């Protein structure tokens, strides 16, 4: 089953064309790493799938439907920067998203409570539920946010830079967790990141964005001199060292993938 179908779509942000005429298809259950330099449109693409950024040309189908705000089949984990520094417990923070768009008092039904417990359980977050958010480490917050994204049992998970400001040990922990959840639920995952190497071995395919273009394929297909040279609009060299991949422009390290 196709999870995401993009057909000649262009995305414009503040008058600037971020992605131009891209076409791609992502199957259900795939783990896709979304990479590219800053400003390449990784977050914009996720926001377009969520219905937050209008499509200026072409067509996008998410789980067979055009993108629409509030699609319950999409789980979304925004960048943590916006997260409030609150003393509220992990449980309350996660639970605030449980049907959080409804009017009225934030009282949860028994079913919603079970859903929160289920999501916390999936990310091994039971012990985080009682602690204040402000006391949690970056990796622990990511687990809570992942639980929050899983509320309502989505079929597509959009994760925006979950590795940002995590040390390598916690980075691999987050990736392992996401992969385990993906397999357990059979859901599609789009995972944006700045660096490719932590994701090697976990992702099925890589979606590389750059200069308004997009390339989707296996790491071997996409992380090559011709493809990346087109995406960066400059000659790019790709070096493989001890199972890790480094992308360089001329003498300079264009985009460190260490």
């Amino acid at each position: 089953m196709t999870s995401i179908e993009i057909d000649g779509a262009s995305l414009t942000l503040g008058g600037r064309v971020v992605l131009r005429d891209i076409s791609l298809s992502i199957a259900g259950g795939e783990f896709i790493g979304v990479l590219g330099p800053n400003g390449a449109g990784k977050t914009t693409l996720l926001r377009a799938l969520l219905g937050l950024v209008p499509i200026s040309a072409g067509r996008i189908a998410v789980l067979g439907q055009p993108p629409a705000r509030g699609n319950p089949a999409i789980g979304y984990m925004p960048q943590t920067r916006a997260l409030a520094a609150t003393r509220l417990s992990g449980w309350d923070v996660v639970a605030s998203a449980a049907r959080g768009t409804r009017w009225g008092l934030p009282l949860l039904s028994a079913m919603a409570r079970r859903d929160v417990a289920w999501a916390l359980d999936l990310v091994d977050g039971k012990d985080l539920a009682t602690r204040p958010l402000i006391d949690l480490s970056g990796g622990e917050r990511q687990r809570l946010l992942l639980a929050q994204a899983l509320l309502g049992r989505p079929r597509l998970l959009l994760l925006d830079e979950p590795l940002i400001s995590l040390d390598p040990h916690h980075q691999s922990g987050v990736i392992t967790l996401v992969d385990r959840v993906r397999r357990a639920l059979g859901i599609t995952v789009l995972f944006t990141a700045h660096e490719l190497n932590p994701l090697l071995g976990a992702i099925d395919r890589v979606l590389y964005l750059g200069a308004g273009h997009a390339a989707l394929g296996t790491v071997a297909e996409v992380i090559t001199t011709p493809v990346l040279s087109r995406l960066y609009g400059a000659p790019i060299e790709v070096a493989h060292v001890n199972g890790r991949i480094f992308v360089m422009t001329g003498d300079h390290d264009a985009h460190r993938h260490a």
Partner: protein
Amino acid sequence: MFAYDFMIHACIAAGIVAVVSGCVGYFLVLRGQTFAGHALAHVGFTGATGAVLIGAPPLAGLVLVTVAGGVGIGLLGDRLQGRDVAIGLVLSAALGLGLLFLHFFTAYASQATALLFGNVLAVDVDTLWAMLGLGLLSLAGLGIIARPLLFASLQPDLAEAKGVSIRLMSVLFLAIVALATAECTQIVGVLLVFTLMVGPAATAQRLTTRLGAGVLLSVTLALAQAWLGLVLAYYTDWPTSFWIAALSGGTYLLASLTRST
């Protein structure tokens, strides 16, 4: 002390205000918008003095201008860079204007003091009814938006993706804060709105990590501080607002000391 009507009125007024500010203040502190609450109180000062100048009831001017200010600050946006600067400018402009209104009406210096520092002992029955109405209105409003407001406060990006309008939440909430602030002013005055809106809520958030318990504790603390302040004022003959401010600040200090050890 309950032999006097004015003490009974004061107790009822303080009770209404404490419940409202305990609830509204909890979300104000949670959202980190205490400065906006403070600014709204000052804007209200201008509304009240302006109303006195044209011969209208000060409470009406207070409520109207404060709500307008709340909606205005809300429309400036939740993520606007330099929001504090905008609030600060509105605040000083409003206070300056309020001073000008006072200048034209020097005869009412005691009224100005009442506005700035509150005068809970002068609350009459009509004002009580007005306060009860305003209080119920702001509590009902908060009850309606509490769920999406909490979502938007804790996780704005996700809430937006799920269909909550961040801007609408901000405007509605600040309108509710404005109503609550206008009420608070009756008890502790423009300058000390923080004591009932922020003190109990901030203390509650230090002491419990649970939402429901936090709101309850915030209301309980506000009630206790407001009533205890009245009693202390009755027996010492010092201003009520001073006692409430002292209790509110003292409790917060105590709570932060016990938490950090």
